[in-house]
């Protein structure tokens, strides 16, 4: 067994970690579809799905059976290649971003020095899924949804990048592990409060969830960009949305709430607790807030969030120079 070197062990361990994280995230995304409906029910004084299995736990199985056996229809007026590509992009881009999330000191897929930039790149690609899906469907509502998505993207992508630059400046690195390590004594939520607020808005917008779900807008656009999708292709859009939710929650925890840092409990428990807290916030936002008009979203992005992030970055830089000097 001369080939079984410590390097080979490390490679297999890394692959095992990647596989576990991949499956864990996809499963969590799937489970969240049911958990969210239960929580929405709770907050609206009703039960939600509680019929299948004890407390509705098997609802997920029923949903999956249903979606697998649905007719997977591609409309004749759709542009076939792009129509097939869009759900793959939607699902894969946000899932790939989990590469950079450090879960515990020992767990995490990749330790990249460009860390955060990788997320920005994939969030940029994720927009194309909505854009292509809406365009390729050959449906006016879908196109309107895609139009809104691109308008919305233009407004939030700019300040999303800027909102995290304060964190990067304070940690002095794009690497996620360095950012977590920099928060050992003080979570970045305190010095970077405005960065946190603006990134929260941008994160909700990235996942196209309430109250920034203008591209979908069930009531006005009859589901927007994925109106023509059915079966598992719709399922990939759907699960992709929840994977995005998990991703943004994990990012917020990593960037502003100290990642795995916390007293007493083991690191993974802290990470999971904080992340589920933000998942709960995502659901609460959906339960509570109405959807603004999409020109309002744009003007909010450009006129409030962008100046706020710029001022935040300037102030951060000034304070760092002051303290450093």
């Amino acid at each position, binding site marked *: 067994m001369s080939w079984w070197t410590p390097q080979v062990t490390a490679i297999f361990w890394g692959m095992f970690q990647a596989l576990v994280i991949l499956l864990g995230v996809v499963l969590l995304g799937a489970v969240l579809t049911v958990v969210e409906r239960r*929580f929405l*029910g*709770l*907050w*609206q*004084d*009703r*039960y939600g799905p*509680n019929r299948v299995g004890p407390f509705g736990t098997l609802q997920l199985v029923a949903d999956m059976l249903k979606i697998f056996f649905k007719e997977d229809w591609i409309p004749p007026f759709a542009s076939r290649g792009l129509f097939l590509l869009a759900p793959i992009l939607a699902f894969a881009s946000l899932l790939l971003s989990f590469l950079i999330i450090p879960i515990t000191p020992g767990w995490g897929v990749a330790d990249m020095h460009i860390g955060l930039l990788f997320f920005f790149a994939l969030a940029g690609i994720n927009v194309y899924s909505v854009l292509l899906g809406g365009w390729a469907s050959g449906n006016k509502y879908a196109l309107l949804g895609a139009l809104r998505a691109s308008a919305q993207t233009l407004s939030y992508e700019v300040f999303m990048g800027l909102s995290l630059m304060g964190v990067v400046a304070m940690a002095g690195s794009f690497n996620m592990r360095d950012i977590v390590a920099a928060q050992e004594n003080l979570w970045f939520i305190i010095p970077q409060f405005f960065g946190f607020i603006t990134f929260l808005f941008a994160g909700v917008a990235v996942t196209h969830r309430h109250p920034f779900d203008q591209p979908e807008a069930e009531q006005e656009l009859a589901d927007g960009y994925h109106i023509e999708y059915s079966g598992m292709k719709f399922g990939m859009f759907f699960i992709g949305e929840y994977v995005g939710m998990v991703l943004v929650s994990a990012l917020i925890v990593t960037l502003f709430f100290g990642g795995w840092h916390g007293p007493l409990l083991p690191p993974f428990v802290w990470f999971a607790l904080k992340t589920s807290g933000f998942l709960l916030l995502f659901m*609460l*936002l959906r*339960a*509570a*807030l109405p959807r603004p008009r999409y020109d309002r979203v744009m003007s909010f992005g450009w*006129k*409030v969030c962008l100046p706020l992030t710029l001022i935040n970055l300037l102030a951060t830089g000034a304070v760092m120079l002051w303290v450093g000097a």
Partner: protein
Amino acid sequence: MDRNKHPIIDTAYRLVPATGSLLRTLGTVFMHGFRKRETVSYPEESVYLPPRYRGRIILTRDPDGEERCVACNLCAVACPVDCISLQKGEMDDGRWYPEWFRINFSRCIYCGMCEEACPTSAIQLTPDFEMGEYDRQQLVYEKEDLLINGPGKDHDYHFYKVAGMAIGGKDKGQAKDEEAPEDVRTLLP
């Protein structure tokens, strides 16, 4: 400076109450998680139905245990969807009764017009709605499905005891609060 004129101050001025309102909404919705749920888990929990709920239709009997229905057809006439049909029959003592009585519940809209029209309190609606069937024909109820062994909501009413109709054992003028019929010959000039 007029706050409505300067865009930055105006934006800031509007942001503060808007943020407060959003946070208050979030708080209110979150607190709803601790409230009692409005849903009644129906098949496991039974639903409260008021006594005058209009559900499954029954035919009742008078306090003596005789059928109340006198086959007057008023219910069938009052029915807006024509779901009631019956055939009049006559007993040996002169009482009228329905030979058959049929309600098609797949048509019935539970409006209660038949109950209002009934002069003898025979036809009544009950607080029961669990009448689901897989076969539509099963929703056609015959007289033996409709007739119950009791007076229903109207406990004491006994039509033949207050009506002026002569039946076996009770002649004209013998009903409750009824005066004896005038002997028309005494009115002759």
